[in-house]
């Protein structure tokens, strides 16, 4: 178990899932982004500061984690737990919904 936690496998799986979510978000919101960019350029620029804010947070987060003595394993575990909550429950809910529909029509 320790080997699994210390390896990059879990990290890579987490990053992969989040990258996929990011890519999907970009694809889904592409038309709205385009609309905001063209019609409300100032609003688009204001939204850009969100990224800068998170970049700023990122710069100091590593130090905060170090200050609190939080090990990387714990961060990975918490992240894995939340990703499980988000992805698996959504997947199961989708299956349940599909089964309900099938039951409704049969």
């Amino acid at each position, binding site marked *: 178990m320790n080997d699994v936690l210390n390896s*990059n*496998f879990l*990290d*890579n*799986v*987490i*990053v*992969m899932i*989040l*990258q*996929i*979510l*990011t890519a999907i*978000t*970009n694809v889904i*919101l592409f038309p*709205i*982004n*385009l609309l*905001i*960019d063209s019609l409300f350029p100032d609003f*688009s*620029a204001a*939204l*850009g500061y*969100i*990224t800068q*804010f*998170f*970049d700023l947070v*990122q*710069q100091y*987060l*590593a*130090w905060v*984690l*170090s*200050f609190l*003595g*939080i*090990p*990387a*394993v*714990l*961060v*990975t*575990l*918490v*992240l894995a*737990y939340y990703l*499980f*909550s*988000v992805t*698996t*429950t*959504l997947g*199961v*809910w989708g299956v*349940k*919904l599909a089964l309900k529909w099938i039951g409704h029509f049969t």
Partner: protein
Amino acid sequence: MKKPAILILFSALFSVVIMATDVAAVSYGDDYYVQSDGLNVSGRWIDYTKSPLEYHPCSSTDISGSYVSILSKAAKNDPAVDEYYQSFLRAIKNDGVWGAAQHHRQYSGVEYDEVIIAFSEDPNTVPIGFNSQMGIIATPLTNTNNSWKMFTIKGFVGNQTTRCGGDYTVTVETLGANQWAIFSTSPTAYVSHGDWLWVKTYFINAPINYPAGYEGKQINKTGVVKWASDSLTPAWSYAVDNKSLTVNSLLTDDQIDKYQIDVCLFQIPNNIQGDNFNEYVYDCKSRPPIEHEFEQLGNYNIIHRVQTVDGQWFDSARVLNIDGSTYNSTVGSAGSNKAILDSLGKISTNTHGLSNIITAPLGLLANLPNLANSCAPVTAPLGSLGNITFPCMTPIYQEKLGNLFTIWQIVLVGVFSYRMGLALFQKIKNISSPNDDRIEVVNL
């Protein structure tokens, strides 16, 4: 009447003298070398439903800027090609000899293009020679271990369904007795075992034995500077040993000297915006290797840039996982996970518009596992008093508290794991309930 006759006689004599000097200038081999503008490859497709079979040409593609990528890709799929490819990289890196030529051939009336890349790791291999029946050729050594090796990059041969839609084919061979790598065909060339129409030289970076009295053009010796922007090799190689990174350029010293190439290494955050990398450069040298010692383990996005004398940049990027292990680019550092991550990293992230609200926290979450291992001291400005620096505390805790800090971390992980275990159990219990329709989303 005398004057015109003298003029005509004088003119005729002059013409004879000019012709004589002109003929004298064309010595053996002067017209063998023909320079190719590029390296074109084209396939063909055959309609098997027709009788007799119909042969159709496909359009040509210039691969002079991407042939290394094609070889690299083929090497990944074929161990035999990989063996040659590694030898090819060693030849480039260690002052071996190599050259490329454009072959134009025909089959059943359809003309097509192929490219050959001939090379040898031995810099003292037999020089390129001139042959009246062939043209400009690389001849084999008696000792085949040091002999010329050759890649042939061929176009796709399709059928009536696939037509031209297919990938390149790369074949390899080591030149043995009575075999030649032809770089340029002479006007009277006779190629006994093929259907070549003509061969033109792209470049030959090898010693060349010009014939005695040769007055033709000097053969182009360069052609190495161009490579695909997305290819890792042979632009550069890397070796990771624990936290040490060594980056080598795979260009030869001569090429670096001639083209005044600056090789720069960048270490940039994964969420870089825009294309101004200059603020992230940590080492830039006109003569590699570049060596760097990382302070922390983690994933690092490395961009290797080369600028040619004409100001054109060639980039290649790589996410390197500095995890305390030892590996290098030729052994194959990229596992399947990393390959997936690398390809996902190429998906352009929209850093504007509404998607920011969702992608920015996701980006932060994706970086969290790395952040925990990549603490940097925080500096706060205090005006006229100067700056105050807060060091990373983990090493200090470890040094001052020793086992007590380890116990703190174990307790922390234990308590959180227990709480998460309970929550996970409850969650699975809820999921198993057929009437539970709740959906959880990331609380942004």
